[in-house]
């Protein structure tokens, strides 16, 4: 009787394991075609350059390592640490919210580097940033200074393929905490809770780079439209201002700056209130590959806003 019971529990364990593996395999198989398709995309530049994928992987590992680093573990035991980081990283990599955001960060890093090379746009201190730092309103100057510092840290951590966990926006950060909590680490619950509590205390969305950029573009009020000039504002402020003026997520604004998403960018800029002539100038900076439809110039701002809102609900 006892034997039977053990057998059954073993067989259910095995069963669950097999099913789990099969399901994972199925998921992988389903995504092969679209992923390879993107990678081989011959129509212009791919959304999944090697550089972006490498950055994404680096950042996920870095976030995992920051969490594991908070656990009371023996730092000598590097094998063990590495194994734990892998477990957490895997958890993070399978979450859509986290990957979507990190993808946009990686893309931003990639585009920033590219714009520096092709259009010599300073990744940290754009002309607009200089103006804001020199603002006669001390409070704006102060936010601008903090933003510049954060932007410079961002450039550095992108080069090192790192992602300080406190820089994540609220939704992503709280999702990451959930994933930390759920990761099968085998560590005591109170250790995990303590580590999470520590990360929570240190977190302030408004002090992170993206938070600061949002505060800065909000402090410009209507003048935020001045930031819709890549070579004047730099990509970071450009994206934040565009997100704020169109009411779209900043991730979408960054995505729109990819050279294969020229039409999206044109639409967002139109919705933000830029003239057709100015929009063409921005597209030229990014070196877009897709032509705009005839009659785009005649499109009104409100139609652009409606289209944008309609299409981003999907």
């Amino acid at each position, binding site marked *: 009787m006892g034997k039977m019971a053990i057998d059954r529990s073993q067989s259910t364990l095995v069963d669950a394991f097999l099913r789990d593996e099969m399901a994972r395999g199925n998921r992988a198989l389903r995504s092969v075609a679209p992923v390879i398709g993107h990678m081989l995309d011959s129509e212009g530049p791919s959304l999944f350059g090697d550089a972006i994928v490498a950055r994404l992987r680096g950042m996920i590992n870095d976030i995992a390592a920051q969490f594991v680093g908070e656990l009371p573990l023996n730092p000598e035991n590097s094998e063990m640490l590495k194994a734990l980081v892998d477990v957490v990283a895997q958890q993070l990599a399978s979450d859509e919210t986290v990957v979507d955001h990190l993808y946009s960060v990686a893309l931003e890093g990639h585009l920033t580097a590219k714009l520096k090379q092709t259009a010599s746009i300073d990744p940290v201190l754009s002309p607009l940033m200089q103006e804001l730092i020199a603002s006669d309103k001390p409070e704006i100057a102060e*936010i601008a200074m903090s933003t510049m510092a954060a932007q410079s840290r961002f450039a550095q951590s992108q080069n090192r393929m790192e992602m300080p966990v406190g820089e994540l926006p609220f939704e992503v950060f*709280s999702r990451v905490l959930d994933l930390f909590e759920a990761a099968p680490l085998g560590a005591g619950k109170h250790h995990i809770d303590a580590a999470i509590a520590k990360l929570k205390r240190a*977190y*302030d*969305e408004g002090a992170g780079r993206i*938070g600061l950029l949002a505060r800065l573009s909000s402090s410009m009020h*209507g003048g935020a439209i001045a930031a819709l000039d890549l070579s004047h504002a730099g990509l970071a402020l450009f994206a934040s201002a565009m997100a704020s003026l169109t009411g779209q997520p900043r991730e979408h604004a960054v995505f729109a700056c990819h050279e294969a998403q020229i039409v999206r960018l044109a639409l967002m800029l139109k919705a933000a209130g830029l003239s057709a002539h100015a929009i063409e100038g921005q597209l030229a900076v990014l070196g877009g590959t897709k032509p705009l439809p005839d009659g785009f110039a005649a499109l009104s701002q409100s139609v652009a806003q409606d289209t944008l809102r309609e299409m981003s609900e999907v």
Partner: protein
Amino acid sequence: MNRQQSIIAAHGLTDEHDRLVKADELLAELQEACGGRLPGALAVPELRELVRQCRERGLRIAREFSAFDGQDKVGGFVRVHPVLETGEDDTDVIGGCEIIIENWLSGAQGDAQTRTSVDWLDAADRASAEITAQLDARQKLQFITSFSSDAEALCEAVEAAPGKLWSEYVELDGIAHEQPLHWRLLDGAKVTVPGSDRSWRARVLPVGPSASAPRGFELLFIANEPLKGDAHREEALENGELQHSRLVGSALTPVLRQPIARIVANAETIHARLAGPLRDEYSEYAANIAAAGQHLAGMLDDLADLEVVEAPGFKAAKERVDLADVAQRAAGILGVRAQARGISVKVDKLAEPIYAQAEFRRVLQVLINLIGNAIAYSPEESQVSVNVDEGSLGMVSVTVTDQGPGITKAQAGKIFNKFERLGRDSDGGNDTGSGLGLFISRKLALAMEGNLEVLPQQQNTDMPGAQFKLSLPVMPAE
């Protein structure tokens, strides 16, 4: 930290149940405009969501936010911080949240919210519809559901002959065109439902991803008045109550406000030559268009109010209203306008508050109207004074006095008439009133069992000043 003070526009505190317990003026005003109280549950939906998230997760959030204060879009950059308290066993417990708003903006900042507000209206109609039906792409009725007893006849008619155009089962008031019309033209139509004495409004809402080629429609019938018992209904019919509809307030105003705001905004852009150089004449024309648009917008608001006060059975709430406080608020709201003309508004300071039994919102509305008129018709650099008095016979009163040309006896006789503008059309377009303000104010005063009157001129000088007195019943002592 201190250097950042000036960028912070408003500050507030919530408790562990997301009730706003402390708030600066701007935030308090927004809270009230959204129907909340202080202290009371945080009523601004956009902030409430952020505060909830902050409290539940214990994380500091920073966001741009915007809200609707009933008239304009307001917004800013908000930071919500959890307030940690030490709990029983020395663990941190989140007691509530601190709300810090930076870069406060108000006014028509971007009009991108059209669709959202339309969605709200649709949701409200869905919730209040008593008859709902589904139509196919050619507006043929597929099925119908109703919970109201007076719609039984309609449901039976549909059952007896299903699949016809929906407009064949009901009577469309005022639409004689051959059916089916384009759905947009039928949306909002007045409808008579067979077997029902009530008047109904139809909503036709497209279903499917594209509004230009819908897969089908949602058809809603919303009754304009609740179903009454038979005895009540006859009585109501006698009073003509059923015929009263809120066409302007419920149908016209929401639809027209947005396009008018856009006309005004664009005309102002042209006037200011923001889009490039322009001949002076054209810039002037644009200014005229903007002024006319503003007039239209104000008129629309007044007409909606008029409809409300003229509705049979209109009643005001009975609250305890601190008159000096309301007067102070009204003066505060009009402060900018007064300053622009160099006029100072002086409100009596009282040692003991005087309480009236009235509806706060309505009293505020009347006082804004009176003080606004006083500012508009006073000479520059003059003074408008507001006095609160304890009257006799159980009445208390607020008197608004200006130093303008005053009101003659003949004018006083008709000043409270509907659409009466006392020849003020000729003052060069400064005044964009509809001639309804005082009429509505008086109706409101009467509805609160008080009165609004012009006091007779005191002396025979050039600028005797006009004096309006709003009297209200005193709040009975408890």
